[in-house]
């Protein structure tokens, strides 16, 4: 019975799917999303699983889209084709790296750089 139902589903709806098998995570706020589609597709992004307030990110024939600049939190992606068929949603979780660690490493980097500059300037003095 289920096999018969699957067979009856339009081909476009069957093929409209994200390449990633499950939820994606990112610690930098950027991620590459890839998909399969029989033709042109629209990629939409929402902050809620019910896709309220969703906004379109891309519409066209490409099969990938690079998303960047996301703040921390959960996001939900969906594909729609011209016939109105939809893919299964894809969840993306963004958890940025530790800000404390980033600030410490920036301070360390600044100290090293100042040390190098001081050594060169001091050494270059006649």
């Amino acid at each position, binding site marked *: 019975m289920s096999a018969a139902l699957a067979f009856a589903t339009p081909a476009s709806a069957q093929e409209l799917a994200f390449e990633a098998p499950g939820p994606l995570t990112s610690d930098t706020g950027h991620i590459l999303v890839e998909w399969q589609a029989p033709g042109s597709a629209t990629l939409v992004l929402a902050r809620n699983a019910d896709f309220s307030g969703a906004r379109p990110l891309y519409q066209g024939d490409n099969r990938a889209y*690079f998303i960047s600049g996301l703040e921390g939190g959960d996001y939900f992606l969906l594909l729609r084709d011209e016939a109105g068929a939809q893919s299964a949603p894809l969840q993306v979780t963004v958890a940025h790296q530790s800000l404390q660690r980033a600030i410490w490493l920036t301070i360390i980097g600044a100290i090293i750089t100042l040390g190098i500059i001081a050594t060169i300037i001091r050494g270059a003095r006649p």
Partner: protein
Amino acid sequence: MLLQPTTGWILLAIFSVLWVGLGFYWGRRNKSFEDHALAGRNIGLALGSATAVATWITSNTTMLAPQFALELGIWGMLAYSMAAFGLLLFAPMAGRIRTLMPNGYTSGDFFRLRYGRFAWGIFLAFTLFYSLTWLVSMAMAGGILLNALAGIPYVWGMSVILGVCVLYTMRGGLVAVIGTDFIQSLIILIGIVIVGFAVLQNVSVEEIHTNLAESKPMLLTVLFPAALMAIFNNLLFGLGEVFHNNVWWSRAFAFREGVAGKAFTIAGLVWLPIPIAAGFIALASGALGVGIPSSDMVGPLVIANVLGQVGAIAVFIIVFCSLASSIDSLLAATSDLITEDVYRRLLHPLARPETLKRVAQWITLLLGLGTWAVCVPRIGTLASVLFFAGPLVGSMIWPIVTGLYWRRANSTGAIGGMLLGGGIGLIAYFQIGWYVASTIGTAVSMVWVLACAWLSKTQFDWARLREGI
């Protein structure tokens, strides 16, 4: 694909003939290894500045700087431009190098004479790894970009770019490299300025800001962790690349006396805004409605969207010039390093200047063939291989800087600094990410080198650098 393959092939043919022709013409007077490797030590300010700018503008500058901006925002754009400090800080060092080693040939000469053979061996391993990965990544980038831009098959595009650079570098040596760099730098700079103005004609800064604030807010955020970490990581990576590599040392030796400091300062100042201009193009992609299927193609896609076919041709030429100006410099500097440090110092100390020139030419050819063989299978991505070298080059900064200016800097410090800094930096690369590896590698190396210098009672005799050549 932005261009028809026929247009791509025509452009490729025109510029290939131009570079090979100029290389043969400029190289006709080279007689000895010194002529071939160091252009007779007589390069003036204009050519000197241009070659430094052109060599530092790689395909990474025109392709990876937009990628940095798209991924890491304003900080990413600035982080990439921080690599200019490599040239700016090398300016006073180049003067010091010329003073201490007026007859030097390579950065390997410095390590051998200053720190001994063991440190020299580590340096050679690190620098050859870096130079060869840079060379491979540039050649691969050539094939990938020509394929993406004009549909030229990857192997053909990569082979033509590499083949052209090998031909004119073999025949013309450093003088051909510097001469072609001069023209290439002018083309790249004019192209980027035109593209920047064209983008601003199509979209205002306000529109770009509004789009970023709404759809990519982290790109404008000051406290963006990955971007913050990238700032000094990239700066230190850039310092490490310039301070250690024979590409830059060979120029310090080749420039006329008194020219090196000014040339590297001018080059740093000219180079500084280029990644910002290139990055700005990427930040405009959202406001322009350009869908980006791959972050390393953001630059070409936005330019083609704004300028159409003319923009696509401009991208093709800029990319070709960026690649050629870096590949030729790497081929020349690496073949000179192997000729001087391995062939002459280890195998044939009494080799004649004409023989050394011939050996350098053969090594250039072998490097080209080796690079080609590695590139054919197309393994890895544009930047990933090169970033692997970040902690290795970072770990060499302090041994070089202290070795040039402090008598108390010593072999234990240099060897430990390179091994500990490189090793721990690589662990950080795999445990945390590329954006911390150079910072951590340099920090570890710095602590070790400074501790060894502080505890040392030795006083290095600078005359040994002059006498040992």
